[in-house]
């Protein structure tokens, strides 16, 4: 029999309908993004959206309808040049206008690395606060998608975590995405917002129609527990949520599940508070193990919580390889690898 392409390695868990932000609507991730962008352009007349192919709606449909609604001077295509997109966005932000730049895939952000790291991140510091590009937000689709391979699956947050001056944010769901993206756009520092592309259609939940903010640099404890702390961000939050259920069911182990949400500056206090309680920490991300952001979390937690630790901190990550195509099911840190690592931590 012909091999079927595999099913997703996670199940999206919608959060309960939010009550405190008014009327909600069923939205998937890309619709939640569109909603955030729509809200931004409505209330901020200086805000513009630009990048490759955003005019017709974007390759992931995140900007559908916005050009018609707000005009071609506010939602427009740029030439195919990431260093230009980010440099241009910095320049807009230097004048005080709001710049929302799209990089088509996080895998293609690297030509813009100099503009992000050497320019955007350092603009305020190097000028003694005479100038800044705080009103710049860069959005990019991020993470594995089942068939993306080397150049449509990357999670490059670790490269940027090493760069003081920018903020790096990864949402796990439509509701989180809209609130976090709005916070990034309004934040007075340049922000990179990575959108888990596998969730664009797969994640559906009730999302408020009006604007609302979810604070940056605040991790969320989405499930309380007493025995092990599990930390992840983006798609992987849904994987570790399932691992928490498996641990409860098969091992009688109670897990505390944390969505980090902001990678830089990250919420050290929430994670440490949890580990002080549980004594065990497992961090999981798709990005390769070596130099991945789990190493930063692990290092800080062992400094702050050494005497509370009952077991070595565990990292369940992608292998130290480029992201493969046909081998994706073996590459990703799926629930079985996380469960196995957790099991070893318990003994």
């Amino acid at each position, binding site marked *: 029999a012909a091999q079927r392409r595999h099913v997703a390695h996670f199940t999206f868990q919608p959060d309960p309908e939010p009550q405190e932000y008014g009327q909600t609507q069923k939205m998937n991730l890309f619709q939640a993004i569109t909603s955030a962008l729509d809200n931004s352009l409505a209330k901020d007349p*200086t805000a*513009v959206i630009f990048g490759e192919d955003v005019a017709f709606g974007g390759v992931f449909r995140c900007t559908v309808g916005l050009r018609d609604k707000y005009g071609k*001077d*506010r939602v*427009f295509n*740029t*030439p195919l*040049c990431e*260093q*230009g997109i*980010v*440099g*241009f*966005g*910095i*320049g*807009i*932000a*230097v*004048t*005080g*206008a709001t*710049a929302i730049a799209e990089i088509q895939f996080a895998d293609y952000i690297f*030509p813009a690395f*100099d*503009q992000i790291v*050497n*320019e955007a991140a*350092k*603009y*305020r*510091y*190097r*000028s*003694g*606060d*005479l*100038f*800044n590009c*705080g009103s710049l937000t860069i959005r990019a689709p991020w993470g594995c998608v089942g068939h993306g391979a080397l150049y449509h699956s990357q999670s490059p947050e670790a490269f940027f975590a090493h760069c*003081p*001056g920018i*903020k790096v944010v990864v949402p796990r769901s439509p509701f989180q995405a809209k609130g976090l993206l709005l916070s990034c756009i309004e934040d*007075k*520092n340049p922000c990179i917002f990575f959108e888990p592309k596998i969730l664009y259609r797969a994640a559906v939940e009730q999302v408020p129609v009006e604007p609302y903010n979810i604070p940056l*640099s605040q991790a969320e404890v989405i499930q309380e527990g007493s025995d092990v702390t599990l930390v992840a961000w983006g798609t992987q939050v849904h994987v570790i949520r399932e691992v928490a259920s498996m641990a409860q069911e098969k091992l009688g182990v109670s897990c505390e599940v944390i969505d980090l949400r902001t990678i830089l*500056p990250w919420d*050290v*206090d929430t994670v440490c508070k949890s580990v002080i309680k549980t004594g065990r920490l497992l961090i999981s991300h798709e990005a390769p193990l070596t130099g991945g952001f789990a190493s930063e979390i692990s290092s800080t937690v062992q400094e702050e919580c050494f005497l509370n630790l009952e077991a070595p901190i565990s990292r369940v990550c992608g292998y130290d390889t480029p992201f493969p195509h046909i081998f994706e099911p073996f590459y990703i840190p799926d629930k079985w690898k996380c469960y196995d690592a957790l099991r070893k931590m318990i003994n």
Partner: protein
Amino acid sequence: MTYVQTIQPQLWRTDAAGGPLQHFSRPQLPQRQEQQHFPSLDDKPQFPGASAEFIDKLEFIQPNVISGIPVYRVMDRQGQIINPSEDPHLPQEKVLKLYRSMTLLNTMDRILYESQRQGRISFYMTNYGEEGTHVGSAAALDNTDLVFGQYREAGVLMYRDYPLELFMAQCYGNVSDLGKGRQMPVHYGCRERHFVTISSPLATQIPQAVGAAYAAKRANANRVVICYFGEGAASEGDAHAGFNFAATLECPIIFFCRNNGYAISTPTSEQYRGDGIAARGPGYGILSIRVDGNDVFAVYNATKEARRRAVAENQPFLIEAMTYRIGHHSTSDDSSAYRSVDEVNYWDKQDHPISRLRHYLQSRGWWDDEQEKAWRKQSRKKVMEAFEQAERKPKPSPSLLFSDVYQEMPTQLRKQQEALARHLQTYGEHYPLDHFEK
């Protein structure tokens, strides 16, 4: 419905007398419409990517580097106006301001270069020979036009009356530095004078300037953005990005290239093989001109006209100002390693923007040797006073190492700031705390 667009073929033509046909070579670009047209059955190319006729002769276009884009000038090397209709007839005060700005900069350069040699500041870059490019262009702009520079445009700030005290404060990194001592010398910035703080990476300012121009256009600000860079920086990908974005997004920007013959030790023959930077402009659909950068009036006229049209027509302009870097690249460079003293002397003695303007001033009766002597003495005194003041001031408090990374200080960074404070309490004797404010 055919889709017709006329672009002049790019041949560098001269008129019958061998002079330039027109100052700005002209790709005539009407507004591109959204592409909604279907190919017709006419026997003309229907490709969406270019508007051109068919040709049945195989012929490669020859890049024209022997007889390149002509160099526009107003004065000859002796400061005499060549074509009176090109004289901008600037009032005496303005021409004197041009002259004083250039010479004051020159004086400051000499003193600060020397101060690096004496170990008083860590680094310096002089502007010798290029003063004309700075003040000629600055004088043609509005004071509120936004300036993005590279690092050799201090004359623009000088023309905008940036005080000597602040030039020196930045070089010394003292307590008066607006940049709070964060950057190497000559990385000036001034919000009040619309001069964006310099950064070391080359050409990064080019796409940024384009974005700023786009925002100015949207804001109906009637402002132009000017972006300076050298011919070396023009090789960077960011330059290509900036030019292309400015043209496609119709931005009111002046790209001002200082072609001074060298990028550190790399001569232009190793930097590019085409006809300099001006020839690249039309490749992007940008109106372009090459000017004599040592002729302040030529620089002025080109910048003035570019500004007028950039704002009125929302399109970019490229000015390549030919000049010569008389000084070393920086205090870390000794250019005798790669060029002859004779070459440098030629430019210093035979074709210098300051002497050419002085001759113009003298021939108008607006300047003489006595005024020259008095001004040299006065400007040197001003510079020395500012210099001595800058030397005496303390450096900013070490706590300023930690601020402005973000608008607000993150918790983890505050902890690091506190850790340094505690460290200094115990080990402070090993640090130069005496020179810093508390």
